[in-house]
């Protein structure tokens, strides 16, 4: 069981079935959409890690629109476009819009699995990095509370020491009185 959910979007039932079978066999969780509309519905309702979508589909929601919808819903969803050789230029333009990659038809499954593994690796690194920054945030917030309390406390103590010094150095007052005054002050600090 691989820890990734893949949404397949293709209007060709043969391609859909083939992709579904191969990806399930490889251990991925697979969701299926027959067109862009179904894809949009699934994306808003379920968690998806990767969208594998045909570039050219009938209707107003094509592969590019699926890409835009997915990225808008959750920018960490990765999208791979499947394209005919003739539409490579469009696929490259899609990469600029945030697609992770594109595959040319007919699909080479070794290539597809390599891309998916790469995405899985990046996502696991990303999760790891987020865990680390979460841990860092926690450590930082606890440490900062301690440090700030100490900082204020030190400043207060320094202020008292300064007052004590002023009293003890005050030559207008008799030295015994200075000591009593200083002791009075220390008493107040307790």
């Amino acid at each position, binding site marked *: 069981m691989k820890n990734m959910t893949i949404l397949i979007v293709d209007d060709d039932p043969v391609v859909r079935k083939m992709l579904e079978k191969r990806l399930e066999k490889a251990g991925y969780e697979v969701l299926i959409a027959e067109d862009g509309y179904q894809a949009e519905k699934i994306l808003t309702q379920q968690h998806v890690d990767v969208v594998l979508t045909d570039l050219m589909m009938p209707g107003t929601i094509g592969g590019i629109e699926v890409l835009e919808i997915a990225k808008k819903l959750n920018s960490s969803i990765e999208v791979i476009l499947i394209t005919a050789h003739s539409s490579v230029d469009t696929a490259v333009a899609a990469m600029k819009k*945030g697609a992770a990659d594109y595959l040319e038809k007919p699909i080479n499954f070794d290539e597809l699995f390599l891309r998916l593994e790469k995405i899985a690796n990046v996502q696991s690194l990303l999760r790891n990095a987020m865990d680390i920054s979460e841990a860092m945030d926690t450590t930082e917030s606890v440490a900062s509370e301690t440090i700030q309390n100490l900082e204020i406390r030190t400043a207060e103590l320094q202020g008292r020491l300064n007052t004590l010094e002023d009293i003890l150095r005050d030559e207008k007052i008799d030295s015994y009185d200075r000591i009593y005054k200083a002791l009075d002050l220390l008493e107040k600090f307790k």
Partner: protein
Amino acid sequence: MLKISPEELKLVAQYIYDVSGIYLDQSKSYLFETRLGAIAAEHGCNTYKELYQKAKTDPSKIFERKIIDAISTNETLFFRDKGPFELLQHKLLPEMIDARTPNSPNLKTNIKIWSAASSTGQELYSIAIIIKELLPNSSKYSVQLLGTDISDGAVAQASRGKYNKFEMERGLPGDKLQRYFTMFGDSWTIKDEIRAMVQFKKFNLMMPFTGLGKFDIIFCRNVAIYFTLPDRQKLFNKIADSLADDGYLIIGSTESLTGICPRFIPKRHLRSIFYQKTK
């Protein structure tokens, strides 16, 4: 990855200290290797000594720039820890505006703010966003926002104001993201109205602060931690010289000035601390 020898470690650490003031622990040889190995490889250096010699003798300073970019840490976020920004919005800015508002209505209120280690710009843009929201009638105010950093790469990215999704993910509330950024593909660019408020330039905090002028508010967060104790003392002394007598200093939330600069006194506001000069 190219391995670094103890002798090279000493040489390179001293070089980095000389050009940037950043003090790197020599026990962390992996840090040198992971950060400088790629530069050595890219320029066909077979040893770190070779890289060091190239960097030292290169009149164009390209190596020096690359090494500084690689060594300086650019971990920063928009509104990184909320504390300082809430402090700025609810206390420091309103008080500073009161203090700086001239008696004559024809005169502008001038305020200068400096982000002393601005990295890739998120801190200064966060400050700019707060000011934009706090002072809608901008014609009455002249707020100068300066960001400086030792890394050319960081300064260039800050000036572009373009961030990828990883740099955007944490810290920035959704409404601010929509209002102040334009999305293109996987990246976000700060809108011109905010970018026009700020200025970034390269500056080494180890150098004398001549020509910078006086500031009303200085942010110097999480940079002194990379310096030695004597260098921290010198740095905060220079900051005290560059801060208006009633100005405010904000340092990193886990940093302390105890034993570093007696010219500053800490003050608490809610859950945050800021510093003012002692009278």
